[in-house]
Structures are given as C-alpha cells and as structure tokens.
C-alpha cells in the first residue's frame, strides 16, 4: 500500500497578492525537494509550471495539495525534516487559522492515483468523525488494515 495525503489551506490574500510573494517564490524549490525525496511517488499538478496552483470548485481562497508516498517515514521526512519545515513555520503569514483538521492521510493501493474529489471526501470524513482508519493524521496514525491507532512515541495513549 502507498500513503496518500491531502492538505488544504485558506489563503489570507489572492495567490498573486504581494503578501503571498514569498510563498509563491518558495513553490519551485520546495517541489524540487519533494519530487526528488526518497519515497516520493506522485503529486497532483495543474501544469509543469510549479507556481500554477491546482484549480478546483471548492473556493478560490482554498489551496490544495495531494500527493502519494511509499511510507509514513518518507512523507514525515519531507514534511518535517526538509526545507519544507520552514514553510510550515511561516504558515501564519500566508494561511488563515483554522479550528478544523486541514491535513489528512489514507492508504491507497500501489499504482492508484487519488482524485481531488476522493481526497475531499476523506477530509469531510475526518472533520465529521475525527481520525480513523479511512482518514488519519501523523498524531493519530493507522497502519494499513489496522482499526486502532499506532502507539504514540510519547507513551501517552490517544
């Protein structure tokens, strides 16, 4: 199985506004890191231009990313152990705060390319029911076929 991932973010200004300039400038170098990262399988792209964000019908201010990875570790190392971490550190400059889950993962058969519709259904699921085997997070992670979350490194049960 491969690990599919969706994250959504509400932009604080239109994507071509000066407030977003640093973020847009970071897209190309960050995608260069993800696409050459160990365990990277696929990501949804609008075009070959990395600054062109994915268009969809869920609202103009919503930025979406969908990608597929070989394992939890591969995705973790890209998200938190690469230049991508700096983007997360500065997220408040570019994205609105949100009280609902904005990122999630789910397992897909190898070779399967998730659609945005499929990903957004999982987002609705995690927002309605919390993390589970069909839509989960790093904090509450489910191995393929498992109905209980993996034990936390901190030794405190979920």
């Amino acid at each position, binding site marked *: 199985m491969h690990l599919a991932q969706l994250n959504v973010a509400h932009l604080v200004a239109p994507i071509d506004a000066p407030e977003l300039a640093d973020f847009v400038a970071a897209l190309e170098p960050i995608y260069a890191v993800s696409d050459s990262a160990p365990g990277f399988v696929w990501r949804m792209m609008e075009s070959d231009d990395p600054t062109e964000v994915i268009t969809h019908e869920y609202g103009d201010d919503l930025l979406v990313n969908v990608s597929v990875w070989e394992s939890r570790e591969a995705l973790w190392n890209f998200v*938190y*152990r690469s230049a991508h*971490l700096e983007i997360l*550190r500065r997220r408040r400059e570019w994205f609105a*705060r949100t009280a609902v889950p904005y990122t999630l993962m789910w397992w897909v058969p190898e070779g399967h390319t998730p659609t945005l519709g499929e990903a957004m259904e999982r987002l609705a699921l995690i927002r309605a029911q919390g993390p589970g085997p069909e839509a989960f997070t790093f904090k509450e992670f489910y191995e393929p076929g498992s109905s209980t979350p993996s034990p936390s*490194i*901190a030794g*405190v049960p979920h």
Partner: protein
Amino acid sequence: MLADPVRRELYRFVAAQGRDVGRNEAAEAIGVQRTLAAFHLDKLVEAGLLEADFRRLNDRTGPGSGRPAKVYRRGGPERMVSLPPRDYRTLALVLAEVVDQLDGDEQAEKAARRTGERLAAASHETGLMDVLVGRGYEPYEEEGRIRLRNCPFHVLAETHPVLVCSMNLAMCEGMLRGLGEDRIAAALDPRPGECCVAFIAKDVPE
C-alpha cells in the same frame, strides 16, 4: 552501567561518530586492547545503549572478502534517570497541546528566545560550540556549518514538530544573542535523524 570509565569513553566515542563503528576503530580511539573494547561494547548492547550489526568494513565482496565485522551505533530509545521520580515529558506534552490549541506559537517562540538568551548569558562557557555541547546538542562541523547531531527535545519534536522546531530555532537564536555572537546566524536546516537547526557564518561585508 556507565560507571566504568572505559565503557563510558566507548559509549561517548561511538555516539559521537553518528555512523557504524567497528571494534578496532573504537579500541584504537580509546587506547585499549581490542578484546577489552569488544567486551564493553557488547555490554553496552546488552543494556540497550548501543545497537550492534554485522557489516563488511571494506569494499570487497564475494569469496575471500572475509567475514562481516561487528559494528556498533547508538541505540534509538532514550534513557532518563530521575531520582526521585519526575515526569517533565508528560507535562511538556500537555503544555504543547495547549499552545497548539491557543495558537500560541508566536508567544512560545518569544519565550524560547528569552530562555536561550538567559541560558547562554548565565553559562560559564563563552563559545557557541561549548554551550551547544553543554546543552546536549552534540554539534559538529560540516561544509562550513555547525550542525547538531542530537535533538534534546526529540519526543516533543516528534509529537509537535512545527511548534518544537520553531521554539528550538528561537532558543538557538537567543543563545547567540546571550553570547553576544553576531557573526553567526541560526537557521532551520532539518535532516532525517538530526536536530533541525544549523549555524552559519553571516556574510561579512567587504
């Protein structure tokens, strides 16, 4: 377990290399016989402080290339000793969750920066490397940067990575300020298995 000085030196040496170390290399570095080094290294493996593996230490393969050698590296799990029992980890976990819920990243970073500044100013060490060693970061130099082999906040950096790494960066920036070190800058430069911060010499105007 670490009361024996030879054993302690061996543990320090293997942990500081950040890679697999053979028995000969460890024995030579500490200046003891190979058999004595092997005895203590295996005791450290039994205690879970080191991990052992078998690997060829040269590039030769196939017949005649010899038996794989036993190699050692630092074990993954952390050990904490606290007498009487204290549990700061669970409390830190709870507080990190609260900071997340309150969206208090910015305040947390400011507090970390102040703490770093005070720690460095109060330290009897005056050089950045010595302060980092003293705080358990295990610094080493690579390509003109100071990198940190150990994350002192590892468990929290796994459960709350963005918050904890941002706080750690702020704390390191505070340490630079506390030391009055204005020729060096701290930046996020994370790598798998290491601390997220690296130190870089600032460009000096010509």
